[in-house]
């Protein structure tokens, strides 16, 4: 932890020095950004926009994990399905995020549904590819054992398949959260009237870098809290069976 904290302190030091040297409102100091965040927090504005963005992140994340996992498992297990869907997957994964967002807004309308669909469509191919690998890596020997001992479908899914997929699910959700919140900001910038992305757009028009950084750091902080209080403890719990290195 100590080297991490030191490195973080170094980052803020370099930033402060740069701000002092530039002496320009376009390069605000960390203190100025912190003061802005405190001000926005006291009016409740900050929390409102953070909550709206977080809700969109959670919705898009849930949808893309469920749809992506289902498709990935199907493609990993059935070769015909894989052959049929693979070109679609390549098409979708190479489609620029911006194009998907614009098309969703045009075809579905400037609505919440369009925003979340656009984000999910951007993330689903990643989940599919990761989980397809997971499905291909399933150990046939354990599957045979489960068959010989007549495990029920539910038991097989819960105790044989899911634990094997866990690292792939973890990888998909890790990269997923980071990617999704970045795309959510773009979606908000283009077609929503609230959320962190909308605020950043607003302050961009005012050229207020302090505010832009304030909102960005506030959301990064939210994601860090999720990482340390949710993702990492969960992972430790799920992998406790691994023999600890001696």
């Amino acid at each position, binding site marked *: 932890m100590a080297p991490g904290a030191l490195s973080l302190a170094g980052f803020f030091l370099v930033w402060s020095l740069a701000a002092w040297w530039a002496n320009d409102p376009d390069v605000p100091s960390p203190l100025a950004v912190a003061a802005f965040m405190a001000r926005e927090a006291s009016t409740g504005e900050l929390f409102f926009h953070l909550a709206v963005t977080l809700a969109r992140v959670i919705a898009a994340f849930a949808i893309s994990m469920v749809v992506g996992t289902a498709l990935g498992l199907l493609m990993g297990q059935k070769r015909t399905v894989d052959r049929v869907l693979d070109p679609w997957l390549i098409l979708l994964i190479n489609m620029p995020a911006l194009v998907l967002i614009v098309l969703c807004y045009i075809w579905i309308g400037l609505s919440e549904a369009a925003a979340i669909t656009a984000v999910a469509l951007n993330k689903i191919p990643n989940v599919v590819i990761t989980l397809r690998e997971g499905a291909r890596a399933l150990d046939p020997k*354990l599957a*045979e054992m489960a068959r*010989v*001992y007549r*495990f029920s479908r539910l038991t097989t899914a819960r*105790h044989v398949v899911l*634990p094997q997929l866990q690292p792939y699910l973890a990888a998909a959700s890790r990269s997923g959260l980071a990617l999704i919140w970045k795309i959510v900001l773009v979606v908000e910038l283009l077609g929503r009237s609230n959320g962190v992305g909308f605020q950043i757009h607003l302050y961009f028009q005012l050229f207020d870098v302090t505010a832009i950084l304030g909102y960005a750091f506030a959301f990064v902080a939210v994601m860090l809290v999720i990482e340390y209080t949710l993702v990492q403890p969960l992972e430790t719990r799920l992998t406790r069976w691994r*023999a600890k290195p001696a």
Partner: protein
Amino acid sequence: MRIDAKDFDRVDGGRIAVLRDLAFSLEPGSFTCLIGPSGCGKTTTLRIMLGLDRDFQGEVRPPSHDARIAAVFQEPRLLPWCTVEQNVRLALPRDATPDLNTLFETLGLGSMRSSYPDELSLGLARRVALARAFAIAPDILLLDEPFVSLDEATAKRMRALLLQLWRGRGVTVLMVTHNVREAVALADRLLLIDGQPAHLTGDVPLPLPQDARTPEYMAVLLDELGTAHPDMLQI
């Protein structure tokens, strides 16, 4: 007459006949060893009997349609994220209430019930696989070289445990091995398979009870087997 496996004609990739005209049946409560050189199709035979390989011609007739079959594979095949006890419990049929305490004690696993498989040696993990097989009170137990790559002392203990469990429970055992000494010590019937495609080359009953078999008796037996089946001797 329990299992009747006829006319296996399993064809692999480039249509290589692995097994041909291999038919036998197992007496209830008997201990049979299926012996043959490595790669001759012993494991394939077991996989067919377990229903894991359906690409063959012929039929496998279990004693009844709800007969319980247990298997011990070459590798323990335990779920690494489940404890020893969970691994055994997951395999139990829903209504089963076996005496796991006695089983774990017999196999010397009493203190390891909440260990994870990665923390166990291969010998111990194999004992867990054995415990799982006996816990479901099977009618038929199929073992695929369950004691390979164990040191001789451990293998010997495991064989004694297997005999002990088999006697106590009246289960029909078919064990695949390429170790003739092991087979002579354990089985009351030897089935020899060999050739390409493999077929039955010998069916040797061993009527003397296992614990009455002295080292001298087994040496003579091995000698006789060697004369009758010269290709077995090299093993």
